[in-house]
């Protein structure tokens, strides 16, 4: 595990589970992984809202001054989901180790322009989508799934790039009945698995071409 290698180098991992049903859904995965780093539960998808994240797993590198230096890309801190994604965590973790060693001398820190692009700062539709999703979640939690669905759909319409809004909503519903689609169908529509799990855009890296998302899927509760 990468954390064991890097933790003595002034480095921490903060892992956040964004699950509307909290420990009930995320707990079994955390218990199984026995993490030694910080593992948090985010029932209200606050971190996605604050950082404009659109998928999982998503990683952000934050330096000692609290500045974002590499955000919002597919990030596997370990191979917990490798069977499912087919994506090897090694290239990303090599880049991460390089940054932990070298800081702003590392080629893996991003320039300001790229950072702004990745963080989709101040897009009004994305901002409103987060509120519609938040409302849908609260209605669902109060036992109003039927009323929540139109708000989840509105969030999906306003921020079509967000897989979070699709997948979390599907997981709380019968997706076929309530959304007329499934996660697998949406992946196909998006251009297939290679588009869905786009590997991180690392300098000098050959992009992996063999992804296998049709593999083992995590259990649904």
């Amino acid at each position: 595990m990468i954390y064991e290698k890097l933790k003595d180098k002034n480095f921490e991992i903060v892992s956040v589970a964004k699950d509307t049903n909290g420990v009930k859904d995320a707990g079994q995965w955390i218990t199984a992984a026995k993490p030694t780093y910080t593992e948090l539960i985010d029932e209200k998808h606050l971190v996605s809202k604050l950082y404009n994240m659109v998928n999982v797993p998503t990683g952000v590198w934050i330096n000692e001054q609290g500045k974002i230096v590499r955000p919002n890309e597919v990030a596997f801190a370990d191979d917990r989901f490798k069977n499912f994604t087919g994506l090897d965590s090694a290239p990303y973790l090599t880049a991460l180790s390089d940054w932990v060693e070298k800081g702003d001398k590392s080629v893996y820190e991003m320039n300001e322009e790229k950072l702004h692009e990745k963080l989709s700062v101040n897009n009004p539709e994305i901002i409103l989508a987060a509120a519609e999703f938040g409302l849908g979640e609260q209605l669902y939690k109060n036992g109003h799934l039927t009323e929540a669905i139109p708000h989840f759909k509105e969030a999906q319409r306003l921020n079509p790039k967000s897989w979070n809004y699709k997948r979390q909503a599907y997981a709380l519903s019968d997706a076929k009945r309530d959304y007329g689609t499934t996660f697998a169908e949406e992946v196909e529509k998006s251009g297939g698995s290679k588009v869905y799990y786009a590997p991180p855009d690392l300098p000098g890296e050959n992009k992996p071409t063999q992804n296998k998302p049709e593999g083992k899927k995590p259990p649904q509760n």
Partner: protein
Amino acid sequence: MGREARATLIYEDVTTEVNPAQEEAGQLWITTTDLERATRFEVKPQGVCRDQLCFPLPKARTQEFVRKDSGKSWFNMTAFAQLVQQPVAHDAALATWYFGLRADQRQGLASLEAPDFSLPDMDGKMHSLSALRGKKVLLVTWASW
């Protein structure tokens, strides 16, 4: 203002039941007492304030935000949301209003400062990102779904 109704207001992910005034569709007027209960913001001479944070109301348009009626002081939540560039999602059937992130809460991201948050671990113990200042951090999100 018309008779009072019930509504649910969600502000910074905290849910509060309030008694809004019956108003034009799409507007939410609540008492300044409910405003404080739901948001901890107070209407002061210098603006709408909470701790160090203060949003001045445009002088010529004060009527759009604050009114006195039936011995109570009322505040227009939806107009204020527009003023502070805050998205609002509304469910009419369930009279529920969700207020998203204000412009000031989104500013950090634009300046590439990592937005801070506090979240619980499996045992309910709270952890905040800012407590790790001085270290490099990989923030990684995942989900069971």
